[in-house]
């Protein structure tokens, strides 16, 4: 009896997986075939890379890649430094107001900068940063999520190690750098993967604060490119879409286990 239900479930599981992969398979099909075959699936359709070449020629994708890489690196670096310092303060120092300060940090888990686009736009305009990459990065640099995740990790660092370092005359920053940071490496990897994929994919805020090729990340570039009024055909749009997803997709296929585990680790908060 159990054997039969297992078999039925296995078939259902595979069916669902195929349905789940179908949209992606379509994107690759359309990107890799001439426009005439974009909507008709025939096994004899010739393969081509021409759609990629045309997409690459019609929009400055090299610049978009560069912008996105710079943006993601800038945000990650800022988040790691700021979260590490703040998490260390919360995890290892007793001070008045730490409870309230921590609650004020956690507020950002609910009300992310994504929601405050109007006021944040005002602030970025006041700073004279509109249409720059730092403008996209700045609201996300202090990450409540990063602070929370690292604080939890730092709290589990054995006190004996800290004492040993202190006896050897290490100050707070040296202890942080020599003891806490190395021990928290898995948390840093987890947070890094989540942060990079979030900001590689982010769209609405970059759309609002950028309006030139020099600052636009891939997602915004793709949206501008794929607008119906540009008159680009499907195959070229899917090629551009594949190009936008490719780096993350490849990274995901290579480091699948780390991705899934970091989403797991990052999710349980």
């Amino acid at each position, binding site marked *: 009896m159990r054997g039969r239900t297992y078999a039925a479930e296995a078939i259902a599981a595979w069916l669902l997986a195929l349905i*789940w992969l179908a949209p992606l398979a*379509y994107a690759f099909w359309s990107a890799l075939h001439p426009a005439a075959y974009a909507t008709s699936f025939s096994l004899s359709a010739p393969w081509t890379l021409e759609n990629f070449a045309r997409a690459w020629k019609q929009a400055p994708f090299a610049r978009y890649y560069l912008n996105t890489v710079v943006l993601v690196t800038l945000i990650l670096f800022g988040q790691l430094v700021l979260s590490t310092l*703040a998490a260390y303060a919360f995890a290892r120092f007793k001070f008045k107001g730490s409870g309230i300060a921590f609650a004020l940090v956690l507020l*950002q888990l609910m009300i992310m900068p994504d929601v405050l686009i109007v006021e944040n736009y005002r602030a970025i305009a006041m700073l004279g940063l509109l249409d720059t990459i730092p403008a996209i990065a700045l609201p996300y640099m202090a990450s409540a999520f990063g*602070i929370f995740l690292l604080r939890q990790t730092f709290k589990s660092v054995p006190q004996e190690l800290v004492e040993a370092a202190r006896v050897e005359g290490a100050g707070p920053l040296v202890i942080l750098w020599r003891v806490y940071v190395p021990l928290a490496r898995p948390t840093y990897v987890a947070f890094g993967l989540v942060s990079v994929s979030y900001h590689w994919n982010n*769209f609405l805020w970059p759309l609002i604060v950028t309006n030139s090729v020099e600052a636009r990340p891939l997602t915004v570039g793709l949206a501008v490119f794929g607008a119906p009024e540009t008159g680009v055909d499907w195959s070229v749009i899917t090629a551009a879409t594949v190009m936008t997803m490719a780096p993350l*997709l490849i990274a995901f296929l290579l480091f699948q286990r780390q991705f899934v585990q970091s989403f797991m680790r990052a999710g349980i908060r």
Partner: protein
Amino acid sequence: MTNLATPSLIPERRARSQAWWNAVNAWLLLLPAAVLLVAFTHWPILATIRHSLFITKRNGNEVFVGADSYQAMGGDPIFWKALVNNFWFALGTIPTSIALALIMAVWVNRNMRGRGFLRLAYFTPTVLPMIAVANIWLFFYTPDYGALDQLRGLFGLGGWNWLGDPSTVMGCLIVMVIWKEAGFFMIFYLAALQQLSPDLDEAASIEGASRWYTFRRITFPLLMPTTLFVAINAVINSFKLVDHLVIMTKGGPNNASTLLLYYIYEVAFTFQDSSYAATLTVVLLMLLSAIALIKFGYLDRRIHYQ
């Protein structure tokens, strides 16, 4: 006397200066993050509330209007439409994607052939940019030569403007978002399932309980905290997820797919009415705060501080 007093005074004074140093150090460590958090979260929240009570005249002067903007909002049919749409969007996406996520997690948690591949297939949409997803799905919904209409063609049915029809547009977006999100929620169930003791399943099977019975009476109740956690995150997401609207519908047709955050974006950056956008944002902030209260009041017991 002084000799007696010193031993007890010095440690006390030392402890006090130690505490002071701790506080100074801690605040210095917090300072960089605090400045940015205040600048881009706390201050904007207060400024939003303030701006919702003022309007900006053409000459740039701000005039206090009190609750006038709120009154105008109450009579704004598009606001109500966006709110109702957001409700249906949440109701359409959340239960289905959670149920699917649970089924997926149970499957990929088991020793099934090709488990790695299944996990990969379910999770992949999660890492894709929403904007790319919207591009791909746009093809499925394109009238006449899109995938859906080609399928309809096989049954001799005519083309249908899926995204251009107010009666189908929301359903189309809901299906797409379920596809995008289910794999993400699966991860949390998978983590929870792996923490459950296998003894429970074994004991149940020795007792002769069917798999469905075991799931319904043992596994599912034990996963309840995860379900709540996922549900609350899903509700928050349903208010933030608007990227696809920019590409697929722009809120149309006839505002049938407008969601609250998208309407805020439109009011602020297309209609250039930042004071009304502030009023609308206050509503969104109130909704998110209500969810936050539920989250911390209800779920905090799950968070174990070490």
